[in-house]
């Protein structure tokens, strides 16, 4: 290794104690709570004392239809939001790297919602999705289309929130794709131009060569989808009933109700879900990248 051959005087300039302040904060406020979560999830816990009850919390979790609905919804939400973000933002990124005159303006418009508070977005769209007088249904009605109860229909609420999530997050997915497309050497496009069609450009140049960007978008929005809370909480609070509950809203509800052990068990379930999905995905993507 290169570092071992460097003189000690140089290495002394990079002392290990520079890690210390960060290690202290990260250790105390992230690593320790994460470790504690595993222990406290096996207890009946009041924050002041904890009684060890083994796997009871997990058993309750698996047998409670509401909690299991939260688990299922979390997965559905992550799949839908990350899928839609890829499907919409890739063509959008192609449009915004084309010879469009307004591409700078349009990029800005699409990106701005990324920076707006999720709570504010949730409140705004809850009003726009109001079933009888909301703007969305007014427009749909004027066009003679059905006017769904976006947030009040238990079969629809989760998907409505997911759509708003896509609206808010499409900007970041699009700029990642734009960066991916712009990093493709121009020769490839020139070769494709000989073939003519936009489709050729898309299928044989952008799709394979912007693969890293695709992986990044999927990975980021999948992780974000699994961890989502703000939007669900401001738009539906997991309702109607528990039709749009996700793991994080279940964690919050159990915490509010004082079931800390159960709340932490929810956290551990989320931790496991993220780990078993994201790590294989990351490894797969890394291997695919090496093959490229």
């Amino acid at each position, binding site marked *: 290794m290169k570092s071992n051959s460097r003189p000690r005087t140089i290495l002394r300039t990079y002392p290990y104690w520079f890690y210390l302040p960060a290690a202290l904060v990260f250790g105390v406020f992230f690593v320790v709570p994460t470790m504690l979560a595993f222990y406290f999830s096996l207890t009946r816990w009041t924050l002041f004392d904890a009684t060890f009850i083994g796997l009871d919390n997990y058993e309750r979790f698996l047998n409670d239809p509401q909690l299991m609905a939260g688990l299922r919804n979390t997965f559905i939400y992550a799949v839908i939001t990350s899928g839609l973000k890829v499907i919409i933002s890739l063509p959008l990124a192609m449009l915004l790297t084309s010879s469009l005159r307004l591409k700078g*303006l349009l990029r800005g418009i699409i990106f701005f919602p990324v920076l707006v508070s999720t709570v504010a977005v949730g409140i705004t769209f809850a009003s726009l999705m109001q079933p009888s007088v909301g703007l969305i249904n007014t427009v749909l009605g004027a066009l003679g289309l059905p006017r769904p109860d976006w947030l009040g229909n238990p079969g629809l609420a989760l998907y409505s929130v997911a759509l708003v999530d896509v609206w808010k997050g499409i900007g*970041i997915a699009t700029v990642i794709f734009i960066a991916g497309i712009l990093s493709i050497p121009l020769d490839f496009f020139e070769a494709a131009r000989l073939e003519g069609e936009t489709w050729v450009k898309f299928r044989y140049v952008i799709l394979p060569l912007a693969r890293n960007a695709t992986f990044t978008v999927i990975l980021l929005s999948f992780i974000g989808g699994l961890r989502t809370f703000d939007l669900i909480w401001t738009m539906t609070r997991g309702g109607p009933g528990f039709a749009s509950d996700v793991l994080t809203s279940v964690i919050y509800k159990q915490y509010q109700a004082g079931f800390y052990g159960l709340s932490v068990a929810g956290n551990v379930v989320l931790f496991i879900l993220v780990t078993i999905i994201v790590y294989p995905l990351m490894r797969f993507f890394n291997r695919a990248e090496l093959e490229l």
Partner: protein
Amino acid sequence: MTVRKFIVSVWLDVTALIIIGTIFVVPFMFIFLTAAKTGPEAALFQFTWPSQFQFFENLREVLEFGDRRMLLALWNSTILTVGSVTLIVLLSALVAFVMQRRRDRMASVVNSIMLAGLIIPPAVVPTIFVLQQVGLYKTLIGLILVEVAFTMPFATLIFRTFMASIPGEIDEAAIIDGASPLQVFFSVILPLLRPAIVTVIVVSSVAIYNDFTGPLYFLPGGQNVTAQLTLYSFISQFSSRWHLLFADVVIITIPPLIMFMFFQRQIVSGMTAGAIKG
């Protein structure tokens, strides 16, 4: 250029502008229009021009509501954001500096820990427990430290990537001149890290200012309210006073709007750089 040719050359621009404008701008126009209406009119949720334009009156009412709670909230959010971001930049840059320069076993362990920190969802209730144990629950300092811990992985990875472009010979020159490690870091490295620092400041301040979950769990209580929590508590307090709720939305959207106008390039490059490499 004939009229026909001109139309053909701009139709894509016009179509894209109409579609994207409708989808992305109308919600913001709705926010503004509702914030300018009277209470009863705002409650109709209509996309119409206010019959009585009282935008500034509504803003003032929100700012003065409940003993100027909004101003307190904006002040708390400012301290939270500035405090957290300062610590994030300092602590993460120190880590990235040593990690990138040493490139030893320890460095790769630290790197893996930071990557895991990006992915793993924080365990909220145990964090409350830890905050209580160290006496920082329901304090701004406590929340600042939590935000630092949660945002540090992102910042460290950005700094590490950028550190790689600063040649080690620069440090060595300073060392030969007799600079101590801290002097090398503060007077040589930190100034050279400037572009990365701007990125980290902009991206993490937007994230922390907009954070809702953090204050909700770790900073409950009226005295500690932050900008995002005013919205949340106004939902119940203002129950049917939608004009004030949306005036609140306008107020808390101003800081990210300013950030966006001045730092759009850094925000976009920061978010994509963090993403593509990560």
